[in-house]
């Protein structure tokens, strides 16, 4: 994802002063990345849009508390991730896991564990984006959140554990399970990687 997330300091200062135009400019600057983050963590575009709205309500309410420490996107991203995780907790009441839990510690995904031969398409060929996206969408919201926050957004397991109110081990095992599932699903489709 290549989106410029730099905003002028003067714009942030105006937003902190409650300038509605500046707040809208911030919304326009971060609307897409926030929506993307929420969409990758959640199941439906509607949920992602709701998280987008909730995130910016929080941003406009508490922008005065943003002291300029760290990148603004990091601050907004944390709010968005937190809102998305809150929604996942609510959704978990009515959504069941789509896949059975898989024991962690199984072989990484070699097609033939006995011989150690590579699986089909293991390294050859370009990544099949559509297949990977579809496989990713079939993971549980919790797994997707951990994968996205860790592998794409660069959060550490410690940060994810804190956001989710879980342990570091939980975050690590979720990541391992998710990658094992992705590998298996992509193997089943004959897609790489």
């Amino acid at each position: 994802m290549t989106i410029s997330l730099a905003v002028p300091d003067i714009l942030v200062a105006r937003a902190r002063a409650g300038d509605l135009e500046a707040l809208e400019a911030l919304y326009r600057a971060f609307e897409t990345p926030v929506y993307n983050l929420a969409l990758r963590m959640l199941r439906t575009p509607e949920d992602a849009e709701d998280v987008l709205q909730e995130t910016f309500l929080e941003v406009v309410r508490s922008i005065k508390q943003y002291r300029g420490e760290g990148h603004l996107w990091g601050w907004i991203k944390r709010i968005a991730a937190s809102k998305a995780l809150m929604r996942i907790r609510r959704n978990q009441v009515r959504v069941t896991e789509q896949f059975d839990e898989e024991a962690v510690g199984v072989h990484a995904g070699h097609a033939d564990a006995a011989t150690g031969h590579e699986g089909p398409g293991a390294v050859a060929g370009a990544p099949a984006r559509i297949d990977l996206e579809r496989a990713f969408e079939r993971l549980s919201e919790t797994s997707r959140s951990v994968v996205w926050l860790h592998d794409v957004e660069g959060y550490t397991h410690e940060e994810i554990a804190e956001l989710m109110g879980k342990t570091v081990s939980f975050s690590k095992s979720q990541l391992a399970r998710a990658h094992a599932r992705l590998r298996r699903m992509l193997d089943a489709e004959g897609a790489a990687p």
Partner: protein
Amino acid sequence: MTHCTIVDLLAFKENEASAWARQHVETCPACRAELEVLYQRIAALKALPVRRPARDRWPAVRDTLRVEQRRQRRRWGAWSLSAAAGIALLLLIRPGPAGRVDAAELERVKQQSATLEAELERYDPDQRVTSGRTAALAAALEDRIAIIDGELAQVGMPEAPVRGAELVKLWQERVDAMQQLMTVHVTRANYVGL
């Protein structure tokens, strides 16, 4: 032959692998290939296409913010309003030619207004996702309430010509507007199943 697990490979990627796993990856082509697949998968995740929201949510955010700002101003003015209302009540129940108002009736509508105010606080519309239309309706009603509050504050001033029936009527108008505001929020909530 024992190969690395996905846990081993993820740990390797973060420089946290065991000595055995590090050595094994160096010597096992299958595990090295599997590690490469992992790197490619993560790179492919990062390269997934950017999705954009179908609807613009800024109007709803902006309208909710405006409603909150109005409400904030109303809260700030609440103490002066209740002080003014107290003065007005004192003046009204005094015997005099200006005419009496039914103090009990005034107290009843004031109580009704306070109850609705508390219900709205409990409902906490600020914490709920709202549509642009709902926010606009709520904003219009908030404005109306603010105007009534301003009139009530004026009526409550000692130098104002106090007309009892007018005071009760204003409080009743405030109650009506508060009830409509509750209906707007609750109807919307029922509609979307929140």
